[in-house]
């Protein structure tokens, strides 16, 4: 390792205050990097002062200890340059990764809507068992609600929703699993740390949008006539937009819980996993 890489100072340098001067130079070289730069300087300060304290504890004079600590750390130009490069996040990768998750969750909401509708139609048909034997005979004959069921149509609607729900559910699962493998094996950028919060906000807005459209004439304009939902006939019972609204708000709640769990895990991991740390942090030097 060259002297330049180690950042060793000139022979006449007394050494005292060397760490402060090093940190000043590093701070200057990381100007414009915002929070990442401040964090790097804070980490460098902790490292250098801990290293110097260790050396002093071994009997070295303070000036020599500081000079050695700075020399071993590497030149500010070298470290700051590497830190700048390390901070260049792939914005495109993060956006792609986040959009991929949103698309997968959106498909999940859609699948949940179709499947809920299929279950609801099944329940409604079972609530009117007297109508079922007549279905085959009635064919497409309409019987008003309350006195009977549009049997044949409702059975077809139930099947159409069940099939659509299963197909979309498979597509959602495939999208989310492929993204997971892409992150783990191919190196796709993970979603940003606060992404669950963004996702929750997205689905809250989507949920209220569905609620509003189901209460206004715009529903027909957006989702088609006759209570159809994205091309799939929904038949009697709940409006599909209401189900989609509940599914969206449910997804937002799950995203918020996920964020809270992650935040708690991030706060606690260093303190709650002693079994993973039989000897590691005990190697840490004594604190000043």
């Amino acid at each position, binding site marked *: 390792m060259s002297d330049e890489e180690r950042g060793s100072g000139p022979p006449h340098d007394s050494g005292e205050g060397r760490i402060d001067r090093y940190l000043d130079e590093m701070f200057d070289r990381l100007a414009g990097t915002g929070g990442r730069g401040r964090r790097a300087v804070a980490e460098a300060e902790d490292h250098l002062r801990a290293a110097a304290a260790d050396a002093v504890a071994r009997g070295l004079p303070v000036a020599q200890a500081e000079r050695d600590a700075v020399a*071993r750390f590497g030149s500010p130009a*070298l470290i700051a340059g*590497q830190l700048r490069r390390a901070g260049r996040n792939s914005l495109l990768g993060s956006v792609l990764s986040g959009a991929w998750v949103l698309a997968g969750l959106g498909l999940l909401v859609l699948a949940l809507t179709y499947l809920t509708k299929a279950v609801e139609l099944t329940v409604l048909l079972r609530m009117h068992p007297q109508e079922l034997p007549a279905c085959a005979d009635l064919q497409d004959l309409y019987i008003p609600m309350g006195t009977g069921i549009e049997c044949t149509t409702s059975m077809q609607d139930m099947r159409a929703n069940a099939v659509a729900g299963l197909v979309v559910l498979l597509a959602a699962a495939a999208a989310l699993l492929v993204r997971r493998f892409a992150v783990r*094996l191919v190196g796709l950028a993970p979603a940003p740390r606060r992404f669950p919060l963004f996702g929750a906000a997205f689905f809250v807005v989507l949920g209220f949008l569905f609620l509003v459209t189901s209460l206004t004439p715009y529903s027909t304009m957006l989702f088609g006539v006759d209570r159809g939902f994205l091309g799939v006939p929904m038949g009697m019972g709940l409006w599909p937009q209401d189900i989609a609204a509940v599914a969206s708000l449910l997804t937002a709640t799950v995203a918020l819980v996920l964020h809270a769990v992650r935040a708690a895990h991030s706060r606690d*991991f260093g303190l709650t996993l002693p079994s993973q*740390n039989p000897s*590691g*942090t005990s190697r*840490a030097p004594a604190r*000043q």
Partner: protein
Amino acid sequence: MDLRGHLDLLVLGTLRQTGPAHGYALIIALRERSDGAFDLPEGTVYPALHRLERDGLLTSRWDADAPRRRRVYALTPSGRTALAAKQREWRVFAHGMQAVLGLDTAKGWA
């Protein structure tokens, strides 16, 4: 020894053995476990840590109990998976190098 290209693997492997650790503890562990063979500019471990965290392989937090601001790093599940994959690659690479260079253990380390 030139560690360019291998530092990420060394950091992941050391963190798996030490558990959550800050940069200084990590560099000491790395030096001790390599018997001093991996003696690199200590500051270079921080860009590696930041890069690995950016890629989702590490997570970090400030240690509230430390007298100074101290960042503690730990492996994520993705980090453990990536480490296992890199270890498999390394075994194949090392086996091939040993065979080509005539360092096969069956023939003795010449």
